[in-house]
């Protein structure tokens, strides 16, 4: 289900080229929505003095996450290899339950719809959904 076709890769790269200028805002909004719509995800951020969705820490985290997504776009021909350090980080240090990757991915898609309603067509949606699923799988690689 996560094999990216040539069309998927092309579609994601083209869409990313259009939207990457706003990647900080995209990331910040996606993380903010995640914290509000799925409050259980806040458990991973108990070390933040301010866990509110628009706090500086939340925004900074959104930026970090989106930089990771942007990096994954450049490595999409071998995500397992390209994301292996990030996978180690998530597996051994952060220990984020992989179910949450789906949650954040969903919120990234919602933000794309909000910010780019005409560009985020169904064809772009399916390719981006597959790409984020492939990234999530690569991030889960080192867990066990």
């Amino acid at each position: 289900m996560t094999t990216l076709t040539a069309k998927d890769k092309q579609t994601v790269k083209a869409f990313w080229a259009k939207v990457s200028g706003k990647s900080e805002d995209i990331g910040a909004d996606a993380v903010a929505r995640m914290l509000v719509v799925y409050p259980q995800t806040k458990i991973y951020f108990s070390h933040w003095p301010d866990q509110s969705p628009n706090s500086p820490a939340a925004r900074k985290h959104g930026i970090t996450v989106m930089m990771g997504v942007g990096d994954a776009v450049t490595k999409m021909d071998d995500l397992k290899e390209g994301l292996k350090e990030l996978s180690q980080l998530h597996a051994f240090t952060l220990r984020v339950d992989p179910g949450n990757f789906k949650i954040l991915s969903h919120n990234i898609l919602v933000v794309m719809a909000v910010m780019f309603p005409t560009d985020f067509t169904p064809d772009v949606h399916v390719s981006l959904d597959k790409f984020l699923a492939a990234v999530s799988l690569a991030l889960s690689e080192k867990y066990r």
Partner: protein
Amino acid sequence: MVNWTKTEKATITDIFSHLDYDDIGPKALSRCLIVYPWTQRYFSGFGNLYNAAAIIGNAKVAEHGIKVLHGLDLGLKKMDNIEAAYADLSSLHSEKLHVDPDNFKLLSDCITIVLAAKLGSAFTAETQATFQKFLGAVMSALGKQYH
């Protein structure tokens, strides 16, 4: 049974009072059939679903999308007992339509995304949370009569 705050009820009422069913319905269903193509299994009588353009241009898909979206009105009118509101539709989806309840989430996510595209920044995180809570309640109710 789901508990709703006054604010949540007001948010849901507000969303539906401005909802363009004829626009959102077709867009949500066609997006579902494109993004999750295995959901096409329920629509073998709909003709050409061969690619995204065909699905988007398909009149039966559009008509059905409007019908399905209006199905949410049942929950809107009976928010304090959504389970009762969907008892019959739940039996229908289980006994007659044989829809995998996991697929409810797929359509639900597409409705959310199409609504987000329509409302833009007005679709705040709080609005999203309330709307997804409502859809979650509807999905749970629709799954209740499966056995």
